[in-house]
């Protein structure tokens, strides 16, 4: 772990509850400048929730998140906007503005936050799209490109302002193996070349081991394991081994019965079957 570098993200005792259900339970970790930290874990383990706390979209029940040394959990909207100018975010769906073209989407942060001329912005947009392998797609609408392309446009947009920190939510899902390798190489180039820091939420283990300098595995609301890719690969933890090898059998509960689900999640199942029966009796 690179503990000598500047701390970019500091997550301390983060707890997030939705009603009675605890999704994140006392999570603490730091991310240092130049690192690529991959956050992994099964579906519904709270990876995206953790990411949303790190970008300031969600407020924790308790605990704090510091970005660039500033606590964003109790920050005003103006303060948050100032911090947000320093990082980029790639959403799982791309989250492109459907009413604007691919080029306009990438140009949006530049138009809003810089005084660059239209010609300069056009040049930057072309360059960013070229980086993600989408030269010549500027005039298409998001509806006219594939899901994988949308994601790459989202990446180009996240990189438009040359951020110091990049958050990516499943950057390679929906991409073919070649494009996955291109996106991974781009991430490596940016982290090595410009000392950009990256936090990547991913299920894709091949990609994760290719780009990560450190990996954090979430489970049961907490951190199951963390370490370098080698440490994770050789971890004695059975949950980690089951997850990275993608095995159906193991300690991670996959097919929960309703009772087990209730025990795990503290959520009362909705009596939808009974309700439907009542509906049919009424209308019969």
């Amino acid at each position: 772990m690179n503990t000598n570098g500047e701390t970019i993200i500091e997550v301390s005792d983060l707890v997030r509850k939705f009603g009675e259900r605890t999704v994140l339970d006392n999570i603490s970790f730091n991310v240092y400048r130049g690192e690529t930290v991959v956050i992994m874990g099964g579906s519904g383990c709270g990876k995206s929730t953790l990411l949303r706390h790190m970008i300031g979209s969600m407020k924790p029940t308790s605990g704090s998140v510091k970005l660039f040394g500033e606590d964003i959990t109790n920050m005003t909207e103006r303060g948050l906007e100032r911090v947000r100018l320093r990082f980029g975010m790639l959403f799982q769906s791309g989250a492109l503005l459907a009413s604007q073209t691919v080029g306009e989407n990438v140009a949006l942060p530049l138009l809003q936050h810089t005084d660059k001329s239209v010609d300069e912005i056009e040049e930057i947009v072309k360059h960013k799209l070229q980086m993600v392998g989408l030269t010549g797609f500027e005039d298409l609408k998001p509806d006219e490109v594939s899901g994988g392309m949308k994601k790459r446009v989202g990446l180009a947009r996240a990189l438009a302002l040359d951020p110091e920190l990049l958050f990516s939510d499943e950057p390679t899902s929906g991409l073919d193996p070649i494009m996955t390798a291109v996106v991974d190489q781009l991430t490596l180039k940016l982290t090595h070349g410009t000392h950009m820091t990256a936090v990547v939420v991913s299920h894709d283990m091949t990609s994760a081991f290719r780009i990560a300098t450190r990996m954090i595995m979430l489970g049961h609301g907490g951190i199951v394991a963390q370490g370098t890719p080698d440490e994770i690969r050789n971890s004695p933890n059975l949950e980690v081994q089951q997850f990275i090898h993608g095995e159906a059998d193991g300690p991670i509960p996959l097919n929960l019965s309703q009772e087990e689900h209730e025990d795990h999640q503290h959520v009362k199942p909705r009596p939808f079957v009974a309700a439907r029966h009542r509906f049919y009796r009424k209308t019969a």
Partner: protein
Amino acid sequence: MKNYLQLNLNLLYWILIAPFTGQFFKISPIFGQMVAIGVRATPMVALTAFSVGVTLAMQAAHSLESLGAEMYIPDLVMLTLLREMGPVLIAVIVIGRSCSAVAAELGTMKVSEEIEALEVMAINPVQYLVVPRFLAMMVMLPALTIFGNYIGILGGWAVCRFALDFNTAGYVLRALESAEPWDLYSGMIKSVVFAWLVITIACNAGLNVQGGAEGVGQATTASVVQALLAMLVMNAVLTGIFFFSG
């Protein structure tokens, strides 16, 4: 209600205060919204206003002829349109067209993470999405109301000229004699207030959508119903204020 009041305060901040702190809103999106909200509504507004003008003149003719007071038909058409029917009917059309469209568009942006993406890019959704729609509505609803008033008066003229014993000059003179500037101003005041209500209700419904496509549908329906009710109640309140203040 809390969200609605907060949206109104945010709007006032971004329009009145933020420009003095160097945070200007962009002008070009306002024109785009003016076209969507106003220009594209003109055929519908024209058809509705003409029909109402024709109907008003025929109904007035039917009642006033029996009293031997046909000469007051232009007065009735003019005053009814300027004070009541113009602002209310045009607002109903704009609610049907634009209130639903704005709520659905912003709602879809909310559920497809576009609004969250804007926030994460340090772009305030109120400044970027709501301000252009608000300013466009504040200009275009009163403009459409004036346009609708003219077309409605034209409808009244068509009945008077071709079905009754009026000539064009007689109709115009009678109509102008009956109306005072305040009749137009009172309609315009109503129109501005309706514009504020309609667009803020639509944007608030869209920005607070929850629950995917079903949520977008519910928010769109709710925005139209709420905007209609708010507009009609506000119309009664404003008419009351104008009536009792003399």
